[in-house]
């Protein structure tokens, strides 16, 4: 019996080894011919594809289950379609933590022949710089980072977008909704109150919720807002319970800057309107989703691919705007939004485009106040240094110049009307 068993097992192993070897070869050949025909097709396919050995590598912190990373993945797909890149020309590495693993992934992408490598998370930056110093003939691009403009590397670039303008527009939609609730006499408290689920007490988040608040305030002057931080960029449970706590504390509307479906789901369950971020949540939240602002990364991906293919330099510090198509709003969900929202948004958007509307407007009396006083001057920490020194005056000409001295946001002022429930983070 023992012998029989071992003979059978040995046989199985032998057979599978042969099968492995044989089929492996056959497949190799098949793949090689596939690749050959692909290249052939690409050559005849127009000028962009003339660069058939061009490859884009993308490093993502999480995967498609995070709205933040999904937004980048969608941008890549859109750019890929627009440029006619093949599947082989775009390599994505998902779930890369903010550690040596990022450097490793970047090196691996270089080995795979990528000409330009993009990373999507703030903490990837120092590891990307390390890779950029090692592989000087490969372009490295990093979203949300702050170091490119001072690092002085020809092949390392930062990018962000003036998303505060998108947040402001989303805030306008929120303000209109609050006005509607107020007119219907359905406010939970005396004044309209919004709740905001934030990740960290960090400039990117603070700039985001402040511009959202200002958007709402521009149409609903007596609005106030509570902000609850989760201390994590992605924590579905924490985001959901933070939203639930805000709803229980009497908020009439919720928005968030955190990457999971936690807050939108909590709103749908409690039937509280929600202004979302990174993408539409209308499918899961048909009754409460109003509108979402998001950064469309496709224009940037197209830019870095085109420039690399053409051998042209990539901007060191790129700020996408409404005009470049980088800052966009999703469709307004008529079921939840106030009447006339879409029209009003178009009007404000035109104002932002021609410069007649400023988001961080310090000139209009009572719009932005800190401790009751107007914000006449502010030193921001624009250049990264070990001491986090505040180095640049950013208030001039009646407004706070956000994302002009570098692409990543640096607005970190705590203004009146916004209460931080837990500023420990």
């Amino acid at each position, binding site marked *: 019996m023992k012998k029989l068993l071992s003979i059978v097992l040995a046989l199985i192993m032998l057979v599978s080894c042969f099968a492995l070897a044989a089929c492996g070869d056959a497949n*190799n050949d098949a793949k090689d011919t596939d690749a050959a025909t692909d290249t052939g097709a690409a050559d005849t396919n127009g000028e962009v594809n003339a660069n058939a050995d061009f490859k884009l590598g993308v490093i993502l912190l999480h995967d498609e289950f995070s709205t933040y990373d999904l937004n980048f993945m969608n941008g890549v797909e859109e750019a890929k379609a627009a440029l006619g890149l093949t599947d082989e020309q775009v390599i994505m590495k998902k779930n890369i933590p903010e*550690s040596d693993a990022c450097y*490793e992934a970047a090196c691996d992408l270089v080995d795979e022949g990528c000409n330009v490598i993009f990373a999507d998370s703030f903490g990837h930056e*120092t590891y990307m710089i390390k890779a950029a110093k090692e592989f000087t003939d490969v372009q490295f691009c990093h979203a949300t980072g702050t170091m490119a403009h001072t690092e002085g590397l020809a092949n390392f670039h930062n990018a962000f977008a003036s998303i505060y303008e998108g947040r402001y527009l989303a805030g306008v939609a929120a303000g209109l909704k609050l006005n509607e609730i107020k007119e219907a006499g359905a406010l939970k408290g005396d004044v309209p109150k919004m709740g905001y689920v934030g990740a960290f007490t*960090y400039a990117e988040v603070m700039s985001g919720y402040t511009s959202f608040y200002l958007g709402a305030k521009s149409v609903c002057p007596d609005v106030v807002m509570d902000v609850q931080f989760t201390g994590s960029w992605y924590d579905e449970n924490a985001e959901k319970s933070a939203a639930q706590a805000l709803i229980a504390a009497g908020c009439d509307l919720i928005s968030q800057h955190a990457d999971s479906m936690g807050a939108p789901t909590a709103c749908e369950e409690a039937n509280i309107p929600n202004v979302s971020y990174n993408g539409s949540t209308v499918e899961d939240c048909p009754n409460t989703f109003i509108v979402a602002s998001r950064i469309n990364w496709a224009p940037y991906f197209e830019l870095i691919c085109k420039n690399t293919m053409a051998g042209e330099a990539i901007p060191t510090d790129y700020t996408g705007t409404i005009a470049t198509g980088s800052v966009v709003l999703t469709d307004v969900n008529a079921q939840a939004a106030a009447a006339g929202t879409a029209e009003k948004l178009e009007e404000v958007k035109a104002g932002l485009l021609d410069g007649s509307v400023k988001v961080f407007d310090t000139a209009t009396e009572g719009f932005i106040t800190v401790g009751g006083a107007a914000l006449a001057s502010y030193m921001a920490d624009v250049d990264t240094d070990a001491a*986090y020194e505040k180095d640049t005056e950013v208030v001039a000409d009646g407004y706070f110049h956000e994302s002009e001295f570098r692409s990543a946001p640096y607005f970190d002022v705590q203004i009146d009307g916004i209460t931080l429930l837990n500023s420990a983070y």
Partner: protein
Amino acid sequence: MANVKKHEPLFHIVKRDRMPIWQSLIIRLAAIVLGLLFCGLLCNIILDVKPMELYKTLYDGVFGTERRIWKMAKDLAVLLCISLAVTPAFKMKFWNIGAEGQVLMSCLAAVACTIYFGGKMPNWVLLICMAAASILAGMIWAVIPAIFKAKWDTNETLFTLMMNYVATQLVAYFLIVWVPSGSSSLGEQAFGHMPIVYHRYFILVAVVAVLTIFMYIYLNYFKQGYEISVVGESQKTACYIGINVKTVIIRTLIVSGALCGIAGFLIVSALDHSVTTDAVGGRGFTAIMVSWLAKFNPLIMVATSFLIVFLQQGVYEFANDYGISTAFQNIIVGIILFFVIGCEFFINYKIMFTRKEVAKK
């Protein structure tokens, strides 16, 4: 009763005598191969991918380039180091599931050294400080539950588990203290880098190789190693032959914690030069599996950690290449482990078919 006697079962199960090693090895290998065949079939059915593509991508993902081979060696070394750390405690039947927190605390200690002493002393002195701080931090985090267990017989499983959460929160706290901008992202530190000899992962791999041999000798040929086995088998026997069980528990956890400390030191000085709340990334738990699969034998752990690292890295590439969720990694690792653990049944028992038995008689 008469009816029952007539109805003989189709087969029955008999405990085996000890099986020769080569035979049990064949069964285990066969289980892995069967598991891989099953995964191939699964890929074919669910994803419409040829099974051979899976195997080829697995192989390429791990051995495709020199860099990937080094990455595999590095990942194997880190996992193995943490597995070595949990082994003495587990051998003693002290269920230490706190390796995650112990390693994380030692990472935190090492990074603290780079932040407070970086640039103020020569690199080699800093590295010694980091190693000392890491080992100390790992030891403290391991010995606290051990003392409670030895003195008051508290439940070490819950205690060590909770210590993991405390460690995570401490890291989150220090990231807020150290990063005034509020991003909680420390980034790579400029000081306290392990010198590069031959290859940037070489020292790490070499240190773990030495540790593996040391642990093998420690567990098998040292008096302390023997005491660990005795306490693991029966605390009463240990008492009877004059082993101080409390001392052994505390001492063993100090060894465990020190090894976790070395793992944390290596992660910070040779790899990340930074710390995040998921710097250990669950390897403190995976290590338990590695150790257990190898029946607490450090040399076999090289193979079991290779199996897990190979599958994780290989399936990661496969999932990326075919645009599948990277959660697929866990599915494949789970299936293979199911087969590997399942095959233990065939090593410990044999199935006797009733008819054949009758025929033989």
